[in-house]
């Protein structure tokens, strides 16, 4: 038996290596597809050798579970729209956490956790897994607009959360002293599930990118904890890779939104400094323009940067934008896209939405790449983005968004902002960009405006 266990462990090692090589493939768009396939192959290796495990004596439940799960997974993956990707990831995070939670529970009831380390690991897997499960379901419901995206809470919520968390830890401690106490175990499960709900409910819709990235990290840590329970190296290694990945993305998102992780988690919004008066910012300074004028401006431009926001995706205008960019390129104009990290609803979301519209990824530039080039840009076209272009973040120390990294579109020779009205974005602030001397407002529906500009370009 010893030999076969060694072979199984070696197969797990191969799987872990394939995951690492697979993630490495994701560092370049050219190798990414292959990387994903390698990781999938690693999963296949891990699953197949597991079936040889001596503890597996019956296959009916396994086959039923794989068929049901495989069908649901495949349908979800085929049907989901790219705009709904954050919801899909939220659900997958939740299911990953739920699976680790269920595995740890099964180990508990099999009585295989009887030393201190494995009982603590079981408790951790149940706690983190259940929090990930219910927290992700709330995130999903908020993103899908099944429930209100506004922060929800009640007085004393933080105290309740603290009691639930400390209570869970005490419960795990009790299980170490009295292994196998089922009442305490179910108490732990209930407290963890409730905690997951209460942790995500007070977080606003605008902060969901951070929450999804963090829950992604949790689902990895939960898998890792399940690995400690089972003494399985593949789970430990893989879970911690995913945990690290989620944490890095969480910190990238926090930086891009100028929020600290604690502020996001406790639903603290930035204090609105001295409220800036919209009239004072905009009065008499806003110049409006027409699609024909914009087209004339573009005809003489050498370099144009398009700044997309999520409003663009909501209007399903990605293809229209691509057409406009193609038309400009055919005229010899250099076109690039400036992607702020929070342009979409999750890390990298806007890139996927534009890639779906067949925008070549070489044209998608992130903030650090594009910002130094605005001064050499003739026209910047802002489409459905607002707060991420607000120069107050750079200039006004009293502003609530001061310090938030922004796209310096105002440095371009001319800025065209396509927008329905002068209404404010998520931050609820007026945007002085709209009143700058070099800014022209093109009021109207985003998609319609882009189509009009394209038509005018083709006619001109």
């Amino acid at each position, binding site marked *: 038996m010893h030999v076969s266990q060694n072979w199984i462990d070696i197969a797990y090692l191969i799987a872990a290596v394939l995951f690492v090589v697979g993630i490495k493939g994701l560092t370049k768009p050219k190798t990414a597809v292959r990387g994903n396939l390698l990781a999938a192959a690693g999963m296949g290796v891990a699953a197949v050798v597991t079936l040889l495990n001596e503890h597996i004596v019956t296959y009916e439940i396994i086959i039923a579970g794989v068929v049901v799960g495989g069908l649901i997974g495949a349908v979800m993956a085929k049907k989901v729209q790219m705009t709904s990707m954050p919801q899909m990831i939220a659900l997958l995070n939740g299911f990953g956490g739920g699976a680790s939670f269920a595995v740890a529970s*099964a180990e508990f009831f099999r009585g295989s956790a009887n030393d201190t380390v494995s009982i603590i690991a079981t408790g951790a897997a149940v706690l983190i897994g259940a929090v990930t499960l219910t927290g992700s379901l709330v995130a999903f419901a908020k993103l899908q607009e099944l429930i209100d995206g506004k922060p929800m809470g009640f007085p004393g919520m933080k105290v309740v959360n603290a009691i639930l968390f400390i209570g869970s830890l005490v419960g795990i401690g009790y299980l170490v002293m009295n292994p196998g106490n089922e009442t305490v175990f179910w108490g732990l499960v209930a407290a963890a599930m409730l905690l997951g709900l209460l942790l995500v409910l007070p977080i606003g819709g605008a902060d969901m990118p951070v929450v999804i990235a963090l829950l992604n990290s949790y689902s990895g840590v939960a898998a890792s904890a399940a690995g400690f329970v089972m003494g399985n190296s593949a*789970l430990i290694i893989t879970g911690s890779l995913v945990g*690290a990945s989620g944490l890095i993305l969480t910190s990238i998102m926090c930086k891009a939104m100028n929020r600290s992780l604690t502020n996001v988690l406790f639903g603290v919004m930035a204090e609105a400094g001295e409220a800036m008066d919209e009239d004072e910012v905009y009065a008499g300074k806003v110049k409006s323009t027409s699609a024909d004028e914009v087209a004339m401006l573009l005809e003489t431009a050498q370099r144009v940067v398009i700044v997309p926001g999520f409003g663009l995706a909501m209007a399903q205008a990605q293809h229209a934008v691509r057409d406009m960019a193609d038309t400009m390129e055919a005229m010899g104009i250099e076109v690039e896209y400036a992607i702020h990290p929070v342009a979409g609803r999750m890390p990298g979301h806007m890139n996927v939405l534009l890639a779906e519209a067949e925008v070549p990824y070489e044209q998608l530039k992130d903030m650090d790449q594009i910002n130094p080039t605005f001064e050499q840009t003739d026209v910047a076209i802002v489409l459905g983005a607002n707060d991420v272009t607000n120069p107050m973040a750079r200039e006004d120390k009293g502003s609530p968004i001061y310090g938030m990294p922004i796209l310096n579109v105002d440095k371009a020779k001319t800025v065209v902002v396509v927008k329905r009205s002068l209404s404010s974005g998520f931050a609820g602030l007026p945007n002085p960009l709209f009143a700058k001397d070099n800014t022209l407002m093109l009021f109207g529906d985003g998609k319609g405006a882009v189509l009009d500009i394209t038509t005018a370009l083709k006619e001109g």
Partner: protein
Amino acid sequence: MDFVAQLTLFVLAIFLGVELITKVPPTLHTPLMSGSNAISGITVVGALIAAGSDSGMLINVLGFTAVVLATINVIGGFMVTNRMLAMFKRK
């Protein structure tokens, strides 16, 4: 495997993860999330053992649930990642 060996693996893998993930460009962050999600479906290993162990009704139910959830994660995650990455590869 003893606890210290497990902990060693855990800590080293976190460092490896940080090194690897910081090299992924922002363009690919969404596929990275769905892909790492699929990989976190490695829990399927534990799920299969629980579901196949034939040790009573409660464990059968938990095992079945774990297999379903982990398989959704694995199949859904890899397929949707592949779908997204294929869009980046065009042209």
